[in-house]
């Protein structure tokens, strides 16, 4: 009786451990990315051009898209005038986005999925020249 109870609690705790681990995996999916800001956009994030960041994916999704990254950047990196960087849920027209040196218009823009160690570049073309 006692024995069976302990085994069931053991089973129970290992189940919850698995659940906790799974939970940890999905909530704290950490992705290391290099973000580069140029053409004046760096002025919005502490005048720093290159940011090595760890982006946590929060909503239980197993992947990170550009859409997620943009809202993360807006919350965590942009210190002032967010309207210079974003318009609606995407970048402001005139901001060029390159994912691993490739125009994001070729990879699906907001739906582009990101992977570990990707390099994402944002350049504003709105400043004079």
């Amino acid at each position, binding site marked *: 009786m006692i024995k069976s109870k302990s085994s069931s609690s053991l089973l129970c705790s290992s189940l919850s451990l698995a659940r906790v681990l799974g939970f940890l995996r999905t909530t704290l999916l950490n992705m290391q990315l290099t973000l580069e800001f*140029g*053409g*004046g956009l760096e*002025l919005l994030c502490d005048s720093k051009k290159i940011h090595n960041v760890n982006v946590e994916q929060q909503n239980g999704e197993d992947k990170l898209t550009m859409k997620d990254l943009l809202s993360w950047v807006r919350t965590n990196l942009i210190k002032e005038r967010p309207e210079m960087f974003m318009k609606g849920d995407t970048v*402001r*027209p*005139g901001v*060029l986005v*390159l994912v*691993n*040196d*490739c*125009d994001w*218009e*070729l*990879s*699906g823009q907001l739906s*582009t*999925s990101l*992977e570990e160690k990707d390099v994402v*570049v944002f*350049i*504003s*073309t*709105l*400043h*004079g*020249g």
Partner: protein
Amino acid sequence: MEEERQRRGGGVRLCCLCNRQRASLKRPKTLQQICRDCFYRVFEDEIHDVILSNRLFSPGDRVAIGASGGKDSTVLAYVLSKLNHAHSYGLDLFLLSVDEGITGYRDDSLLTVHRNQIQYGLPLKVVSYKELYGWSMDEIVKMIGVKNNCTFCGVFRRQALDRGAAQLKVDKVVTGHNADDIAETVLLNILRGDIARLSRCTSITTGEDGPIPRCKPFKYTYEKEIVIYPFYFIAAATSTAAFANPSPLSFTYAYFKKLDYFSTECIYSPNAYRGFAREFIKDLERIRPRAILDIIKSGENFRISTTTKMPEQGTCERCGYISSQKWCKACVLLDGLNRGLPKLGIGRSRAGITGRKDRNENYGGKSIDNKQCGTLDF
């Protein structure tokens, strides 16, 4: 790694020009998906074609590149010296910069131009407001406040560039105005009802009746491509033998990769109106990239009816600069500054000075106001 990248976006997209390499850019002009190497080729070839088909230069021409340290003029200086060498244009190229005297700000972009001078091996000439007019922009702002000073900025810069060009004894000045800039200007001129400027602003060469013509080799070049050009440079240089024949230019990739240009928005001018026009153009471009070329085309096709009065060209009695009035705009502004009446010549005449209304309108108070600068571009 390459495989990993190709997985994205539903498979490998090959360049539609060479069909060999992975596409990495969508051209706004044609919507073609092309690779870096092909991008370089078409970007430079198109500018070469524009130069040839519009006969922008003649062999032996001395040409000053208006260099602000910004992206457009930086890329223009590089591409023009490359084409000059590759296609034996026989041009003598110079960098020409204007120092407005804005402390702690212009200094940085002038530094960029100084680096460009070394990188491209082009002689550099800097003319300053202080030396030409006796006033630096900082001093002007101290005198009149931050509100109207961009009128000075715009008028003085334009003339400073011409004076610098005269000192260099060049035959032509080229500026980095791109297709987006020109579309924006067309739109602004429509919004202001400035028909005279509307078609003129689309001309690839202007001021042929004046002392030194100006031209815009980037007239049909999209800003997006100008921004991306230096960015792809290092990749092309390292991944292929594309740069196997290094030009005699002492040019460092590292600088270019770092986008060695300075964002040159004039700190004295947020110029909201121009900003809105710019944003509108960019919104249109996102929906239909061709819109930019179409707006330019609309401007070109505008014919000026005979009833629209065009100002007659003459020269300024005071300094000899080209002017449709007795005094050129810079001289009117300077006169105001020197007499301690800096508002003279700015904006439209007010109701209170009705007697002078005609003269003021005539002499171009309106257009001075219009020529505010949004950027430190020329």
